[in-house]
Structure formats: C-alpha cells, structure tokens
C-alpha cells in the first residue's frame, strides 16, 4: 500500500518549488513552441519557407549553462554552447505546454533549440498518470495510485542557434 508521496505532499513540493524558482531564483526564459500544423514542408520534409512557432511563453526555469566554445575556423562569427533548461512540470501543465524537440528557448536574447526532452524525475518512483487500472477501472493489487508520486520536472537539453537561422522576430510577449 502506497503511503508516502501522496498528493498532499506533492502539493507541498509544488509550493516550495514555486517559491524557489519564482520568488527566490526567478530565472526566466521565453519558450517558443514549434507549430507543426502551420509550418509548411516540402516533399523532402523540409520547412522550406521557414518554421512557424506559436505565441511565445514566459517560463521560470533552472538553467544549467555550458561554456561557450571557440568558433570553428570555417564558421567565423558563431559560437557553440549547450544549455540545460529545467522546468517544473506543474508550470507547464498549467499552461498546457508540451516540450518537444525543435522548440526554441530564448534566453538573454539568444536562441537555443531543444535537442531532447527528459521527463524522468519521478518522486517515490511513481507517476500518478499511470495508476495501472484495468478496463474496469481497478488495479487488482493497489488502489489510489493516481494520488501518489509525481513526475516533477521536464528537462530540455538545447544548443545555441544563431538568430538568423531561427527566423523569430522579437516581439512583445
């Protein structure tokens, strides 16, 4: 029988996380969600007319910054930098934002394209989205698993992309 990590505890974590990320650290990024529907692609699957993004969203994030690396000799004027953006999953859920590869994260007026998304930080090893119920709505071994555990974070690994390649015009959020 699950005992720990009940919704009440998760609510406490949420309060603490939001206090930490929103009120204390207050590190913000602008999230540009890639709009698959509006983006036109050619027969090769290329967005030949440019990618289209949804309205930008301001989010709190914990940012793990890699150092900028020296430009390659044939790419004068560019830098390489990998960043990890860590989001509180509840913040994303509130605005129904699903992070995905190809999305652009804007930080310090620089753009970072999401390479992969990690959603693997489960508290007490359980994700309440999967209570393992059968077709009759019951779990023969355990009840109420939908109230225990949480998938706490969404972590995006991203790399720097020059603004001219993104094609995003700066606008008011």
């Amino acid at each position, binding site marked *: 029988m699950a005992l720990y990590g009940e919704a009440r505890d998760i609510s406490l974590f949420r*309060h*603490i996380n939001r206090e930490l990320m929103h*009120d204390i650290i207050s590190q913000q990024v602008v999230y540009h969600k890639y709009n698959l529907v509006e983006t036109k692609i050619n027969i090769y699957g290329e967005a030949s007319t440019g990618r289209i993004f949804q309205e930008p969203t301001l989010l709190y994030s914990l940012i793990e910054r890699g150092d900028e690396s020296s430009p390659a000799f044939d790419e004068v004027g560019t830098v390489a930098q990998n960043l990890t953006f860590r989001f509180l999953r509840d913040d994303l859920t509130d605005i129904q934002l699903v992070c995905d590869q190809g999305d652009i994260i804007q930080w310090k007026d620089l753009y970072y394209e999401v390479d992969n998304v990690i959603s693997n930080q489960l508290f007490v090893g359980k994700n309440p989205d999967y209570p393992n119920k059968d077709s009759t709505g019951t779990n023969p071994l355990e009840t109420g698993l939908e109230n225990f555990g949480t998938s706490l974070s969404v972590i995006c690994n991203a790399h720097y992309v020059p603004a001219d390649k993104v094609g995003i015009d700066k606008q008011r959020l």
Partner: protein
Amino acid sequence: MANITIYDGTSRFFPGKTPFGFYDYDYEFQTDADKVVTFCARRLGYPIENIELQDINFYAAFEEAVTTYGNEIYAYKVRQDYLSLEGTPTTSTTLNTDVIQPNFASIVRMSHQYGEEAGVGGTTTWYTGSLSLSVSVQDYDLNTWAQASASLDSTDRIEVKRVFYEPPPAITRYFDPYAGSGLGMENLMDQFGFGNMSPAINFLMMPINYDLQKIQAIELNDQVRKSQYTFELVNNRLRVFPIPTEAGGKLRFEYIKESERNSINAPGTSGGVSNVSNVPYKNPTYKEINSIGRQWIFEYTLALCKEVLGYVRGKYGTVPIPGAEVTLNHADLITAATAEKNLLIERLRGYLEETSREKLLERRSLEADYKQKELNLVPQPIFIG
C-alpha cells in the same frame, strides 16, 4: 492535481477553527488569534518567504499555548496546596479563581496512624471482648475466640491491643498489714472498707513522696515475693499468670480487626480529591490572563509553530526540485523550537517558584530584617520625662 493552500498573509478566526474549542467563544481570544497568526508568520519570515502552514495550524498552536500556560499555573497551584486540597470535594465548579485557605486535614489524616497504634486516635475502631477464665487453665486462644465471637471474615484476624489482667492497684492495699509496707496498725480500717479514706480520727499529714514510696514498696514486694499478675501474648495465644484458681473470672481485652486497620480509604473523603488529576482546576479564562501571561503565550505559540513548520519541511529530509533536490531548514527549526519551548517552560516555572508561599514569606522576612537595619540607623533621641 491537489493543491493544498498555505498561509497567504490573511486569516480570519471564527469558532470551530481550533482542535478543542476551549477558548473559541472568548472574545479576546478571538481578537488575539489573528494577531498571533500575523505575529508568528512574520517572525517565521513571511512575507519574504512562504510559511507552509495554514491558519488552523497557528490557531491550534495558540490554543495549545494557552492550555499549557494554564496547566503550568494550576499544576503549580496543585503542588503548592495539595495537602489542603486532598479529600476536598471534586464537584465544586472550579478552583481557578479561589484563594486556597491552608488546612490541617491531610496532616491530621496522615497522623491518624500513629494515634491509632497508641490507642489515642485514628480511624480504626477498638472493640472490647471478654472471655471466661477457667480453673487451672493458663492458655487461651484468642484467634478461636475471635472466629466465634468477633464477626470476622474468614480471612480476617484480630490484633489484641490491651489486656486487662492486672493486680489491684497498690493504693487499695495501702493499709494492708500483709502488703509489706510496715503500716499494719490500720489493718482494721482497711478491712472495713475505710482504707482509702480518713476515718476521722487522728490524721497526720504526710508529704506526697511518702505515699509514693510506700506504694512502690508494695509493688516491689508483690513482684519479688509473689506470683505477679501478668500475661504473655504471642500470635493471639494468651498465657496468664498466675494460673487461675477460681472459676467465673472474666478476662477483658480490647482488639482491632486487621482488615479495618488495613483499610486505605480515608473516612469522609469518598468522592473527594484523591490525586492531582481530579483537583477541580479547569482551563484558564483567556480574557483574565494578564499581559505578562499573554506575552508568554505568544512566544510559546511561536515556538510551537516553528516546531510544526520544521516537521512539515522535514518529512522527506530533502525536497526534489527539477533536476536536483534541496534540503530545507527543518533541522534548525525543530532544534530552535525545542530549545525555546524548554526555555519558556523553565522561565515560567521559575517565575511561579518565586511566588511560592515559602519564597514570599522568605522575602518578606528579609525585607523586615533590612527595614529594621535601616531603622536602626535613625538617631534615637533621649527621652526626657
């Protein structure tokens, strides 16, 4: 997604928000409750940081602090006055506002046992009994007598306290020519029953020590030259000396029933105060607590809130954040709360101890001494009449 709200800077007390509701309808408690919430929250860091508590947590702590304060006060009063309170009725409304008049009830009750053994008091009845002496029978079993005549339970016993088996007082033989007193000339009067009285003839007043010496001489004579009246009593088996030579004599004695002596119920205290738990003190009336007491209560409430917050923040040791985890200050909170609670309790007990009857009298005595010393410095004029 459950979202349990935490304190948001506002609170509004109304009856029913405390666990026990002891003081919910006390207007001043209601007024102070929300002020206490604000006080505690700010002392814990709000609004700079969140306080993961709800208003009901603060109210519960406030109620507990008031109750603890009352408990300390009244427990002290019980300790101070218990000798006077023991045995008093528990049905009186409350002693909260009464001034206790010290009394000797418990002291006397405790002394009963000594008087009881000495036969001069106590609560165990001394019964009288008698048995007939038989010719040439020296031993008598009082246990057998008791079972037959003393209305005992089968497991009960008697304990003989006194046996009336003594020779006649020496004074009755004061004029006995055979008493060995050397005063045989009054033998005739003694035979006529005038032994103890003046026969209205010549009378020589003698000092009292003369009489005493003569009586002692008679008693010593009996002890040395005669088979003295005496007895042995072992395990309620009575052996009398000398062996009875005439039938019909009655031997009287006094005894108690052991079951009655073993009784632990003090007479007249049934339903009264029997231990510290039923002394009729009740929770304090909040509105009557003075500012000194209220400040103590506020500080104790804060310590309790700190403790609860520590337990809330420390349930999991660390709190996960995206991609990492953090350790909150729960250990510091609990340590500080425990220390503060102990300190407050000690401070209150010390304060109460300072106002004990003993300390107050001691201080008053010292004051009187110092006053006297000071007055002695005043020049004393010479009285000229």
